[in-house]
């Protein structure tokens, strides 16, 4: 069984040391760039339901005393889908991490690109991937954490590009959704198909990490990349 979904705010609280978090670009929201029927109402309802303004929170803070930039997609907001606001927030976070020479951690949970922003959503895949590539070429550490579910355009862009790839247990991770695959091949998929353990067995994930161990493992990785030295420490 995949773990219960967790809100982006709760995730940030679990990962950062108490009182060290500063949210970034909180006010950044998308418009209705292609005037998609029903989109404005739908997004208003999502905001009402969740109290969030978009499907992603980004913040800087400290993990066991080491500074880091962390983004978290929230599957409770519009399926964690990526439109222009999510793409922009990811890109700004990557660029900020590069400028400040901080490690970057992104927790993904997404149904994919947001259809209601059309081609502009598709282009966020290119934009975020380009930003990650620049960051990595400049020597930045990107840890991608795949949580349930990570599919579609998010699974096929920044989420797949971590220097280190982690996953929560039994998360659904894949490009095509299981229903689409079943319709295409005309048969049921085997148990465990596209789950974290499957992705690790096929070479796409370094380790599966339990939720309660996540902060400890992230801190270990930051130390292994030297972020406990050379000005990487908090205050």
């Amino acid at each position: 069984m995949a773990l219960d979904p967790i809100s982006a705010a709760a995730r940030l609280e679990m990962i950062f040391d108490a009182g060290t978090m500063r949210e970034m670009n909180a006010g950044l929201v998308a418009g209705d760039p292609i005037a998609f029927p029903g989109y404005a109402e739908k997004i208003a309802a999502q905001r009402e339901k969740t109290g969030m303004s978009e499907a992603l929170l980004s913040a800087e803070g400290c993990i066991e005393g080491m500074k880091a930039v962390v983004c978290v997609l929230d599957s409770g907001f519009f399926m964690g889908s990526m439109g222009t606001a999510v793409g922009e927030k990811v890109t700004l976070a990557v660029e900020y991490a590069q400028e400040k020479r901080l490690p970057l951690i992104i927790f993904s949970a997404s149904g994919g690109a947001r259809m209601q922003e059309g081609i502009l959503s598709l282009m966020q895949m290119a934009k975020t991937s380009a930003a990650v590539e620049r960051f990595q070429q400049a020597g930045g550490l990107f840890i991608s954490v795949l949580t349930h579910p990570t599919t579609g355009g998010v699974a096929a862009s920044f989420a797949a590009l971590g220097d280190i790839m982690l996953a929560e247990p039994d998360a659904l991770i894949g490009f095509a959704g299981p229903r689409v695959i079943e319709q295409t091949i005309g048969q049921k998929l085997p148990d465990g198909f596209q789950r974290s353990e499957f992705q690790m067995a096929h070479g796409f994930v370094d380790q599966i990490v339990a939720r309660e161990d996540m902060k400890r493992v992230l801190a270990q990785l930051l130390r292994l990349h030297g972020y406990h030295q050379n000005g990487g420490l908090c205050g």
Partner: protein
Amino acid sequence: MIRTILEEIAAAEAALATAKEEEKEALCERLSRLYDSCREFTPEQKVLLSRLAKRPKIGQILPALFTDFFEQRGDRQCREDASILCGIAMFDGRPVTVIGHRKGSTIEENIACNFGMPGPEGYRKALRAMQQAEKFGRPIITFIDTPGAYPGMEAEERGQGEAIARNLAKMSALRVPVVAIVTGEGSSGGALAIGVADRIYMLENAYYSVVTPEGCASILWKDAKKRGEACAALKLTAQDLLKLGVIDGIIPEALGGAQRDAQALYQRLHDVIAGALSELDGLAPQELTEQRYRRYRAI
């Protein structure tokens, strides 16, 4: 619907060629009305037109625009994926790397190339060809025409998402010019995975979308038959994308679609590619990658 209009035009043109003098005026009027209906294709009609079997595909475009084509096969890891065509060729006397989705014009051809739906091996082959182009300083020309990346079990097992993502990241930093042209269907990440470019053009009746219109309709309205509404809502035509600032230009097609005058299409494609390369040739690699980054950064 599209086929019917085109068949009517063909029939009327044939009739006109052999018509008696007194019938000609009525036939001309009829043709004029039919042509007019081609001038104002709806988004859904454009989508259908983009999928026509007779529409010029990479198999016809390639020999018309390039010479000396040398095909490069295989991802050097496990397999050859025929749904993407890669190779080196001459364009106006200079070597370029050509990459394109391969769709067939017949059922047999389409089965052989999986209807233009690549697996990860296709994208990895394309990346291999692109990185080689970078090594040897060749510009890259890509032709996009796919209903999407293949949603199959093996494709997922071998990392469809990873392969697409890797291409997006690596294409964004290629130190040689990249020109992409959407010739038919530009559907989803499977299209974008060979589409991160310095100049992007679309044929007049091509479409480029985050999702197939049928997929959109069945997800949002639980009814794949609402394709027409999805086509309109997604803003997926070349005219829409130009307005949204995603593409640089529209390549006109013959009245009624590119298949009606392929030679004219090849000439226009040639001129657009030559124009784009002459603009990009002057840029240093660093400027090129910086401009490409800014292009996507601004969306």
